[in-house]
């Protein structure tokens, strides 16, 4: 394996997950290049979030293989995968409600640093963590709320904190699970601009139902249905494919 410059950021082959008799993902194979913008679409229950959970390690795969920059991560725990450059956001907001925004983002920074094991110095000792957390909050337009509790935020702001925490990890592969879900039109535009501004070192894989917004962000599109890859390729080709129209666009 050429580890110096792998040609694939994420390589999934013949991935399968079954819950008893129910097969959630069925022989899924995908290849994501470094820096690629990939949109994953499909009707409800198509296996999109299951696929994400398999990639992050929240779910152990029944069969198949996942490689991250050439490293076989199929049997690694989620935190090991995070250290290899994988980050994600959640469809259902998963934040630390009783803590401030700054603390939330700080945790995102701390997770990859050795100082997370520090047992005798207070967290405030690490001034660079605070500075960096505030810089990231500024980037998502929430600096003015840095000292507020997450529980006091509006829904749309929480979505942006989700993104900020993942960005704090400076991931090489970022999985966004419906980052636009439940947002107003104005908020959509804000988050869309944030996603568009993610640096090119990061490959972005996004599940999203809002096709109007999401297609603008995507270079490549994968259509899943009943846990199988139906169509996979360049954006325009997938959109034009009759199978896409049949499964997803309902035309």
């Amino acid at each position, binding site marked *: 394996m050429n580890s110096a410059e792998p040609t694939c950021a994420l390589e999934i082959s013949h991935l399968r997950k079954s819950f008893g008799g129910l097969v959630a993902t069925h022989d899924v194979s995908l290849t994501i290049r470094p820096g690629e913008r990939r949109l994953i679409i499909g009707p409800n229950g198509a296996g999109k979030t299951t696929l994400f959970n398999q990639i992050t390690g929240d779910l152990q795969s029944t069969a198949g293989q996942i490689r991250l920059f050439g490293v076989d991560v199929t049997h690694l725990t*989620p935190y090991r995968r995070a250290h290899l450059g994988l980050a994600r956001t959640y469809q259902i907001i998963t934040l630390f409600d009783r803590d401030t925004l700054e603390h939330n983002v*700080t*945790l995102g920074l701390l*997770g990859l640093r050795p100082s997370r094991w520090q047992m005798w*110095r207070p967290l405030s000792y690490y001034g660079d963590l605070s500075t960096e957390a505030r810089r990231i909050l500024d980037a998502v337009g929430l600096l003015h709320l840095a000292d507020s509790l997450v529980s006091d935020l509006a829904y749309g702001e929480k979505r942006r904190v989700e993104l900020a925490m993942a960005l704090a990890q400076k991931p090489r592969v970022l999985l966004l699970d419906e980052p636009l879900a439940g947002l107003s039109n104005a908020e959509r535009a804000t988050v869309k601009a944030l996603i568009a501004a993610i640096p090119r070192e990061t490959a972005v894989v996004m599940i999203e139902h809002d096709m109007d917004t999401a297609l603008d962000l995507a270079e490549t599109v994968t259509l899943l249905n009943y846990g199988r890859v139906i169509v996979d390729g360049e954006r325009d080709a997938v959109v034009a494919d009759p199978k896409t129209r049949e499964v997803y666009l309902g035309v």
Partner: protein
Amino acid sequence: MKWIAAVLFAAMLVLLPSVAGDFYVNLASQILIAAIFALSLNLLVGFGGMTSLGHASFLGVAAYISALLTSRYGFAHGPAAIVSIAGTTAMAAVFGVIALRASGLGFLMITLALSQVLWGLAYRMSNVTNGDNGIAGLTRPMPFGISLDSAASFYWFALAVASVSFLMMTTFVSSAFGSSLKGVRDQPRRMAALGFNPWMIRWITFIYAGFWGGVSGLLYVYYNKYIHPTSLSTTSSAEALLGVIAGGSGTLSGPAVGAALVLLLKNYASAYVERWNMLLGLVFLFIVLVMPTGIVPGLSKLLNLRRGSR
């Protein structure tokens, strides 16, 4: 203002033996021991989200090891204390591996089962533990040649140990690691995705809590100069858990307040009320209804309200 209150409180603690009689000084010593024990349990329950019903294992085992080594095997108190704490901590490491296979109710049941095994052993292995008779005739250590046999000197010794333990546990939960621990309590899945190792964080905390549980056990056996299997019983674990919850789990001082409350009710009220357990129950009912998050958070909320209305 806060500093003045803290200094006054510290002075009050140090000067207690010069104003109070031996009965109250001994009661205060017991409260200090129970407070260390409750604080160590709070690391698991309050900060780690791991509700244990077997924490008495660590208190009891540390006490038994020290008692056996000094009374039967002729160990001096110093080496006995080191072996006892090291042994208890090692046991916590093993128990942690077993108990952390589960979380929530499963974790609680495993800790309960493990402590019941130890309790059973203490009762049945009478050739070693002297069974239901317990081990009597123990002595207190003489650190730097100072006798701890008087109520006041033991109290000061316990106060010193309790202060160090409070400081160490407070530092632990305020540290970067403490933030990781609270994160794992609230959102374990997210923490793993951020690069934290939830299992390792919980395990280290479990061992640390076991260590301080052992320290409280040493003080316990020094104070009583006697050890009996009840120190390993579920009641002993449950009382500490009640103290933690009543005082305010996940707060720094709450468990100490809760432990004091339980001990006062047990020792003081039982002199006047025959059914002190019923009184204990009523007090907890009151706390749960009026201050569901515990005495310390409840009171500070009240104080804030009064300040706000002024």
